[in-house]
């Protein structure tokens, strides 16, 4: 009997559209989020294949061909050191993703862990973490990051640290809120009533239900991270040259806004599309992950 059963179930499973697939279907229905996804995929593609997409090197300067306007040779013109702007922007996607991912990982890890601790255990742990969150949230991210980066010095790592230091609070608050509601839910109580252990409840009941929130958070925080790091570059404490970072390209290009407006503009557009992409995805995921959000 059990073998028949297993076969039957296997065939059922085959026929059945998986949960992930359904989420994807729901996601796909939202046209903007598909657009967003394609932006982001494009950026990832560019980041991986940047060397194949351009004949130039991102660091090759040419003092005699600086600030040239777009031409056949240099599709987006050249920058203030005579480097091919397109090349730098293409390579810049690497830095952008790197910065974005590092920040999101850093703040996400701290934020989600603290959120879990605060939400699950409550009591004084919660009290301490949430007061810390309140304290840090009283500082505008950019401003605190500027102070920190200004003191510790610039560089990619410090930018990540400085932004993440406040950024994690957003995750912590969201995750905590979500956990509080999950923790109160009947199904968690039911789990305890059947004899599940705390660890098992966290792993099987709480985490899977927090995960969508966390994923959405990442998509929402990614843009903030990208924009914040660009702003730090602008304020003079961000990722430093010659790294081809979009933020610093846009920031450096501002001095040339009257003679070579394309430098700042194209870098800004690259940032904008990536950020827009993540925002759209975040929006789409929010709906896609929540099967109950739509009326039956």
């Amino acid at each position, binding site marked *: 009997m059990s073998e028949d059963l297993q076969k039957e179930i296997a065939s059922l499973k085959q026929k059945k559209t998986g949960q992930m697939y359904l989420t994807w279907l729901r996601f796909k229905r939202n046209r903007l989020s598909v657009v967003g996804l394609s932006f982001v995929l494009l950026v990832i593609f560019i980041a991986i294949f940047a060397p194949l997409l351009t004949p130039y090197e991102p660091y090759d300067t040419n*003092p005699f061909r600086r600030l040239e306007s777009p031409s056949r040779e240099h599709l987006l013109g050249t920058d203030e050191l005579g480097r091919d702007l397109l090349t730098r922007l293409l390579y810049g996607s690497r830095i952008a993703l790197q910065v974005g991912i590092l920040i999101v990982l850093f703040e996400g890890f701290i934020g989600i862990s603290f959120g879990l601790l605060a939400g699950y255990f409550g009591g004084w742990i919660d009290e301490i973490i949430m007061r810390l969150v309140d304290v840090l949230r009283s500082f505008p991210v950019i401003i605190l990051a500027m102070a920190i980066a200004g003191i510790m010095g610039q560089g990619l790592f410090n930018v990540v640290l400085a932004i993440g230091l406040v950024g994690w609070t957003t995750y912590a608050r969201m995750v905590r809120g979500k956990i509080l509601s999950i923790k109160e839910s009947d199904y968690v109580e039911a789990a305890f009533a059947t004899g599940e252990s705390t660890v098992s409840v966290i792993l099987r009941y709480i985490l899977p239900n927090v995960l969508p929130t966390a994923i959405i958070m990442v998509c929402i925080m990614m843009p903030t991270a990208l924009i914040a790091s660009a702003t730090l570059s602008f304020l003079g404490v961000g990722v430093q040259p010659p790294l081809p970072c979009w933020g610093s390209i846009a920031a450096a290009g501002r001095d040339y806004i009257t003679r070579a407006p394309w430098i700042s503009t194209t870098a800004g557009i690259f940032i904008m599309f990536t950020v827009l992409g993540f925002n759209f995805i975040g929006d789409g995921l929010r709906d896609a992950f929540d099967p109950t959000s739509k009326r039956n």
Partner: protein
Amino acid sequence: AQTSVGIALQVEPSKLNPITYQDTETGFVLGSICDPLVTLDEEGEFIADDSVVESFSVDETGSEYTFVIREGITFHNGDPLTAHDVKFTFEAFMDEELGSPHHRYYTGIESLEMEGDYVLTVVLSEPNVTFLTMSRLRNHVLPKDYIEEVGWEGYERNPIGSGPFKFVEHSPGNRIVLEKFDDYWGKKAEIDEIVFRFYPELSTAIMALETGAVDFMPEMPAEEFMDLQDRGAPGLSFETYQKFEDHRICFNKREDSEFSDVRVRQAVAYAIDINELIALTRGDMAIPARGRIPSFHPAYAENANAYDVDLDKARELLAEAGYPDGFKTAIYAPAGYRERVQEAQQIQQQLAQIGIQAEVVTLEWGTYLDVTAEGEAPMFRERWSAGVPEPIGFVESWHSESSWNPIFGTYENPDVDALLDEIMQTVDSQKRWELYRELQEIAMDDVADYPLYWPLIGEAFNEDLYIPDNLWNAFRRPIYYINYWSYQ
């Protein structure tokens, strides 16, 4: 007709205290409010024109300086300017409590002696031929009675002087307004009002200049100047003059560094294409350097080895030094100093051709200073500028006992030390210039530092503004003589 002139400053003056200020911007503002004790002419000689002294003299020992003050000068509050005020000003610089950054230049003063109300003699404890240079007597004569009445803080809030313009208001973060002083003793201003506006963002400042929101921007960056000039930006006139300044690469010559080997330094010198650097950041607003002292100065060393680009030679030297395949190193530049950072990146490319892999490291100013001073930066991009004609500052750091020596990467050469000592004691300027030349030639053979270029300053300004030709000069500079400006 326009009677007010707007001046763009990139940094807001800290506080208008002639004794303690350190930033050039404060100097720009005070220059119109106060009168200097003595001034410089176009050649860099000290003169009495436009200053509060009628004449000044040095005794034959070089240790007594006598100043005869002009009579009839009044401060903006109506008080007459006398030798008391000059003495007071000297004393203020000497007062350690007040914390003047120039305090040490005044330590040699033994006494200040007055003869009547208009003659002051400064007696030095030992002869010093460069007293005027070192004590930077472009500084401003202050109203003794007023300051004693309102205190220094009161003065900073409402500074007065005897200059062609008087202070009206400082709206923090926004602007400083000066207005014409009608009772000025000298050349009365034709402009009624000066408005200094602060633009932390360079591009904004340039746009302000282009749209006529301001009329003048002192020490505009070369690139922006070139751009405006090339575009023939409507409504603007253009002028250039050479500044008393040089730009160079410093090496960490301490023993553990690759650059302690002179051949490596020479290789770098042969690899660097100065013309490319100039093209990159200054267009034609610079002169390639030979030695360190700018070419318009009599101490200019025409024959100092200039290391024209020769990559083969560079590779050869490297190989000789034991680095046939080059090595990994780093070139440091302070963040926020656009030209230096850009040039560092260009130098990185140039050095790559001879196999030196130099990483560009940009550091926030304070950290940069720390790191370079501690010898952690193998190469770094430096700048030196002087406001006085004596070029000693350019070369002083080569002396093994100079306090600047470790900061710029240490350098030891007994011949250089001896020459520097001699320069300090040589009263005859022609002879001094000769020594300076000799010194530079030796140091250039050693590539103690590698000078890159001497910058030209270009100013773009409202075309309706008339600024006399004799102000376009490293030692006078238009910004300090706004009373000579006028609208056509």
